[in-house]
């Protein structure tokens, strides 16, 4: 990192912008609320919003007092995402607004006395800087050389800007680093995506099968609520997880599988269900393609074969297969969400899709419903220029089934190499802390060094902001309008987000940033509306509502127009696949040169004294973005390393002891992590919650708390089908003494 053109700058040296008001506005003390303690003079106001702390986007109401100070956010009762009940992150969302570490004013990287520093700038100065650079890149390399990484609602407007500028390279890490394999697998099987919120009919299911999916710890609200309903209804839950997760503790059957062998179990289940004749014959006959090939293919995968691989007893495999078959078609083998594990993930998710198909759960009550959302027309704008190339040109003949842009692909295409031109020269990054999000941290940093422009738009000084040329402070969701939430559900629903209060400091909403930048660059015609209210009102009126109505309602339910929620028995259905059928045997995978039926492959195992590094979620945090939120930090300030007591005894580890971790490539964790000795984890693996170990000092609460799993994920197993980055093939060992300090790279 020495002599690099883009040194990491700690924003901490700057105390600029508006006066930092720490903490919440305490108008009355807690213990005093016993006798109508809230003064009668208080006039509370409620404004609608939808949550931005995760991507479930629950609708809610924000309560503010007469001074415009936010008190609380509560769920919207009419919203099917939350049914009036936000999750801890949504409830604690107010902390995003009150966090005194927020970015406060635009910053531009300048060289002063030979040192790189951030200088506070006006929005006008920042836009001029960015516009000049973008024009230069357009001239030199073409507009296709700019990419947008986004993981937030504001990305809609920034994406619109990028398309107007001339590039289609718009990417979210949620594809290649998360749910991509399941979407590609279900698309190639059923011709449709799983979508978000997932179309799983958990509410009415009789059997829910979770494979490494830790609902409850993964707090996707509507799903967790429905799982709770399913428990009330007496549904059988089957959880496959090497860790005794919260969901495992609620399950009728917990299968403590050996890590990295899930596909063997899935193939054995298919084997049992076919050989015992427990599949839905009528459904398979009518809707499925390639059953005979499947039957012949899974002949080899008996429960006895799977036992030696998975350590799950054949009797248990048969018993759980029977449990699913008894419940069918009201059974869900859940597709999961973060599924980029071992590089053969699309094939594993294909096996999940096939299992659902032969049990007839797709399109059936208690299985997978047919979601619907409405078409929301776009405000008129001139046609976008047609890009002459995309990121994909850097990877000829590769990842043809990646229907979304790969974040890691864009990152790789930003590094000059002998094989390919450095295709990408500028990044705009919004609401995603790429340093903690993408595996291969070294590659991310190398790519950043080769950029000609890096603009970061965020509410918080996340690590990625330290590498930017320009940092733009976005206001939080509680202070802004955004695009209408229009998500697929059992019925189509719209939800409005509007500002509950004025933006703090010198922060601005993304729609404003995108529009102003477009105007600066002569692209104002693409944002033809005066202000966002006009645009939203125009859109809403096209679908029989209005901004005024939505400001009052918050959430509006619309009528289903197309098909039914479930297939009707005997209904003729043309699936959106090559054969028009549910493809048990995938003609698309075959044409692309991949296995048309999933095959088990063996994955690397830890060497002696090393343990597989597993990671996951905690219900009160969303990745690394909430770790500094005052309300949520208080609930879980740091992550712990889960270690089985047998392993702890071997290493003489104690509860709460701090250790450093070293991975198979010798990479040592920057911060130590505390040990949690628990029976809830296998002896061949360790576990930590993702999103901790922040080096950025400006995150005053989160800095130095816990360890970062991302830093230790240096081995990535690439899914050749769609470019997913398998991240569960990393192994760590314990260092009980503080290691020699590594060269600072992050």
């Amino acid at each position: 990192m020495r002599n690099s053109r883009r040194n990491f700058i700690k924003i901490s040296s700057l105390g600029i912008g508006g006066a930092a008001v720490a903490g919440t506005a305490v108008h009355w003390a807690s213990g005093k609320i016993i006798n109508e303690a809230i003064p009668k003079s208080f006039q509370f106001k409620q404004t609608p919003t939808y949550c931005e702390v995760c991507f479930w986007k629950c609708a809610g109401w924000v309560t503010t007092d007469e001074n415009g100070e936010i008190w609380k956010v509560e769920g919207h009762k009419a919203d099917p995402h939350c049914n009036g009940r936000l999750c801890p992150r949504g409830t604690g969302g107010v902390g995003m607004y009150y966090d005194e570490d927020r970015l406060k004013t635009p910053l531009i990287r300048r060289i002063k006395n030979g040192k790189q520093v951030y200088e506070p700038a006006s929005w006008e100065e920042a836009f001029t800087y960015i516009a000049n650079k973008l024009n230069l890149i357009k001239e030199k390399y073409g507009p296709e050389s700019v990419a947008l990484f986004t993981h937030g609602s504001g990305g809609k407007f920034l994406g619109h800007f990028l398309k107007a500028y001339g590039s289609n390279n718009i990417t979210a890490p949620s594809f290649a680093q998360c749910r991509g394999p399941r979407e590609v697998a279900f698309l190639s099987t059923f011709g449709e995506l799983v979508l978000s919120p997932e179309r799983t009919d958990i509410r009415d299911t009789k059997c829910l099968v979770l494979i490494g999916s830790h609902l409850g710890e993964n707090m996707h609200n509507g799903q967790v609520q429905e799982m709770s309903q399913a428990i009330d209804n007496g549904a059988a839950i089957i959880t496959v997880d090497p860790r005794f997760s919260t969901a495992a503790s609620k399950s009728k059957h917990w299968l403590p599988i050996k890590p990295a062998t899930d596909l063997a179990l899935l193939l054995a289940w298919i084997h049992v269900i076919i050989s015992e004749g427990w599949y839905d014959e009528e459904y398979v006959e009518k809707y499925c393609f390639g059953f005979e090939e499947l039957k012949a293919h899974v002949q080899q995968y008996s429960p006895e074969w799977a036992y030696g691989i998975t350590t799950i007893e054949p009797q248990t495999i048969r018993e759980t297969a029977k449990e699913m078959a008894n419940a069918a078609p009201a059974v869900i083998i859940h597709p999961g969400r973060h599924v980029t594990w071992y590089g053969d993930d699309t094939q594993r998710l294909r096996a999940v899709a096939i299992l659902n198909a032969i049990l007839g759960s797709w399109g059936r009550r208690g299985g997978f419903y047919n979601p619907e959302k409405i078409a929301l027309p776009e405000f008129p704008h001139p046609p976008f220029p047609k890009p002459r190339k995309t990121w994909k040109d850097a990877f000829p003949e590769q990842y043809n089934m990646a229907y979304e842009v790969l974040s890691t692909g864009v990152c790789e295409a930003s590094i000059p190499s002998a094989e390919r031109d450095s295709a990408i020269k500028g990044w705009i990054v919004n609401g995603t802390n790429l340093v903690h999000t993408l595996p291969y941290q070294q590659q991310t940093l190398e790519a950043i060094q080769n950029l000609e422009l890096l603009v970061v738009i965020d509410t918080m000084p996340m690590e990625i902001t330290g590498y930017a040329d320009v940092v733009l402070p976005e206001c939080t969701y509680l202070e802004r309008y955004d695009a209408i939430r229009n998500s697929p559900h059992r019925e189509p629903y719209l939800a409005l987000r509007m500002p509950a209060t004025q933006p703090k400091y010198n922060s601005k909403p993304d729609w404003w940033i995108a529009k102003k930048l477009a105007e600066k660059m002569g692209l104002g015609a693409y944002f033809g509306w005066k202000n966002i209210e006009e645009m939203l009102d125009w859109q809403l009126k096209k679908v029989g509502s209005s901004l005024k109505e939505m400001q009052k309602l918050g959430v509006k339910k619309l009528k289903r127009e197309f098909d039914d929620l479930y297939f009707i028995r005997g209904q003729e259905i043309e699936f959106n696949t090559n054969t028009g059928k549910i493809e048990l045997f995938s003609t698309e995978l075959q044409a692309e040169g991949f296995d048309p039926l999933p095959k088990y492959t063996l994955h690397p195992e830890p060497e002696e004294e090393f343990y597989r590094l597993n990671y996951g979620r905690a219900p009160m945090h969303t990745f690394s973005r909430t770790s500094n939120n005052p309300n949520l930090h208080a609930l879980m300030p740091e992550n712990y390393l889960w270690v089985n007591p047998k392993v702890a005894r071997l290493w003489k580890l104690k509860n709460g002891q701090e250790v450093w971790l070293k991975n198979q490539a010798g990479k040592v964790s920057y911060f130590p992590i505390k040990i949690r000795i628990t029976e809830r984890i296998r002896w061949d693996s360790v576990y930590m919650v993702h999103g901790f170990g922040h080096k950025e000092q400006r995150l005053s609460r989160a800095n130095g708390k816990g360890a970062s799993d991302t830093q230790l994920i240096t081995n990535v197993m690439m899914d050749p089908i769609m470019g997913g980055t398998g991240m569960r093939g990393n192994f760590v060992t314990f260092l009980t003494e503080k290691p020699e300090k590594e060269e600072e790279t992050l």
Partner: protein
Amino acid sequence: MRYAMAIDTRKCVGCSDCVVACQIENKVPEGFCRDWVVEATSGTYPKLELEIRSERCNQCGNAPCVRCCPTGSSFYADGGIVLVDPDKCIGCGACIASCPYDARYVHPEGFVDKCTFCIQRVRKGQRPACVEVCPTNCMYFGDLDDPNSEVSIKLKERKHKTLIPEAGTDPHLYFLI
């Protein structure tokens, strides 16, 4: 009228939404809480059981904190809810020492504070903030004297327990098991 709460341990996922909702609703100062989550694991891998409980003041019918308060600031309010009068409280901590559930803390402003079943909400006919927010809908609140309240119904339908019954405190926080 006798208020009580029942919490379904089969549904609770330990997400701590009850904790954060309480903190925000009641302006509990940063670093303190009136309710908390306990995860109790038993057994050895892979024969395991996990009980998750959202815990708080048990609003005891025979409350040691009320008995031992030297200033009379801990008292029984409507529906048996145990409250602290912050103006009378001298912050001596006798109640904290006497509580078998460790449900009380000293507020930075010098008085003792704890769960009030959100009495300010209950008096308006609303449910406590924790009950209202719970995403798994695992918490039930109501009047034990009303046989049709959701808490009475749940206690009739389901096996349940209280914490440390041997302390003889007559707790009104029930766990459905």
